[in-house]
């Protein structure tokens, strides 16, 4: 018997603190697989943003630095400049990256910092109990948009991948979803590409993953999968918004 699917080695075998159907687990796996694939586990340093992904260090067998909320790209910059030959990535939620961490991610992208940013967009603040995120969809009810997000008061859901793709420093910017096998395959591809391009010193790479937070969407896990397809993807189109060929940069 040949094993056709197994846990990536970089993924520590343990019970996670994630809720049922939470896609953080899925994204952890994709990252672990990309690291395994490049064979760089021992040369990898992750930077955990603050959010439900903060316990990255309990799940991935790489070195991990905890960053203050939103500041992971700046922390990763410091780490990468000291260790330019190591693989450095950040793992951030949408509150972390698109709200409080907007300035850091934009400037790190603009500097073309040679790191990978894994951006888990679940359209809500998971860890703190379901408040509105910058990515919360219009009309979506959260604990701080109890009448549904209204652009007059709360602004619009931000499309980070598109915005970052306008910056010269960005080597790769893609949006993928992890709601079904077909999308998962593309997601895996995008995460792999991002790490690979980093390994080739091609600059800033960014993958946004549309993910479910069933708990704070007040949905069953299966209903949450449907919401990704029916509500998120229409507003957040999937695709690669920028991809640099090595030659352009060097």
């Amino acid at each position, binding site marked *: 018997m040949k094993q056709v699917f197994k846990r990536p080695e970089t993924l520590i075998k343990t019970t996670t603190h994630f809720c049922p159907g939470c896609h953080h687990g899925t994204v952890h796996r994709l990252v672990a697989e990309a690291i395994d694939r490049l064979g760089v586990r021992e040369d990898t340093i992750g*930077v955990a943003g603050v959010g439900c992904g903060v316990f990255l260090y309990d799940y991935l067998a790489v070195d991990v630095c905890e960053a203050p909320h939103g500041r992971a790209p700046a922390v990763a910059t410091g780490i990468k400049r000291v260790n330019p030959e190591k693989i450095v990535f950040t793992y951030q939620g949408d509150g972390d990256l698109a709200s409080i961490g907007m300035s850091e991610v934009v*400037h790190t992208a603009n500097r073309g910092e040679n790191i990978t940013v894994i951006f888990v967009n679940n359209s809500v603040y998971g860890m703190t109990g379901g408040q509105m995120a910058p990515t919360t969809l219009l009309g979506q009810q959260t604990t701080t948009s109890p009448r549904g997000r209204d652009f007059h008061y709360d602004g619009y859901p931000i499309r980070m991948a598109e915005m970052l793709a306008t910056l010269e420093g960005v080597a790769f910017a893609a949006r993928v979803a992890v709601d079904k096998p077909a999308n998962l395959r593309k997601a895996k591809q995008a995460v792999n590409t991002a790490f690979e391009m980093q390994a080739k010193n091609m600059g800033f790479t960014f993958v946004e993953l549309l993910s479910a937070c069933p708990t704070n969407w007040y949905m069953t896990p299966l209903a949450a999968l449907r919401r990704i397809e029916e509500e998120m993807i229409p507003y957040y189109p999937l695709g690669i918004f920028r991809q640099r060929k090595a030659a352009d940069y060097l």
Partner: protein
Amino acid sequence: MEERIMLKGSVALAEGALTAGCRYYFGYPITPQNDIPEYLSLHMPERGGVFIQAESEVASINMLLGAAAAGARAMTSSSGPGISLMQEGLSYMAGSELPCVVVNITRSGPGLGGISPTQGDYKQATCGGGHGDYYLIVLAPSSVQEMYDLTIRGFELADKYRNPVMILGDAILGQMKEPVTLRDAKPVTYDKPWALTGPKGRKPQLVKSLYLKDGEMEVHNWKLAEKYRRLAEEDTMVEVDEDADADIAVVAYGSCARIVISAVEMAREEGIRVSRIRPITLYPFPSGEIRRVSEKVGRFLTVEMNTGQMVRDVRLSVAPGCDVRLLARPGGAIPTPQQILAEIRKALE
């Protein structure tokens, strides 16, 4: 070789950082400390280091956090408003036990304030500043030579205690030039087995300040507290110019302490017996020496370029019943030797 060269305080400090082996600087411009990033933007790359002008002070302190976590000697510098923005990051670094050097060339506050020399950030520096139970190691140079020497010492102490160190200067110390003797000796370095370099041949490692399990956080807080106790025991620095029969002792630090020197000379010429105490570490505060002197001298005068901040530490240090007075000039005003002398006379009336 003991050759003296004329250096600007900011440049001496930057040279001190380079001498200490600092090869990573992250900072955001702000008056009156721009000479530091400007000098390092030129010289850091020459010495194989990295200079990054961060997009903000928040980014600076977090880049510093990353570089420190990776095991490097790294520095940032700023002034009041920028230092305030770094408080979260500083708290994280103290909580994660990461060494670094943060320079505050002060400007008068609160708010945008003014850019003249001041000691208005004493409270912020010595209280830890950010949230939670921690302290920065705070060094207060008083000459251009010390801008150089204490910066080197700062990196050593940061690594020794795995704690952020603040160099608290002001515009006088940053802008003035004085003769400086550069060091030949190598700075002390420390192994950093905890640094994040990728888990090659070892278990994965972790730099963090989150402690959620029952009781963990209390253990961590007491561990930090014990470190601060040891710091006070081993590395408190103070300059005492003692008159065994003094009638009064004058306490001041930094550039203000220089003016006190002039005042004390004038007082002694008049036959007044004065001791002079200059805290070099503001945290840990040299309570022991102050206590010792205060057991012989019943009158103290604290001179500060603010509305009165260090005076609290002096009062907490002196022997019971010792009378501690204050001469305070905030907002960039600089007390004159004459004014200090007048205050000394008044205290002795």
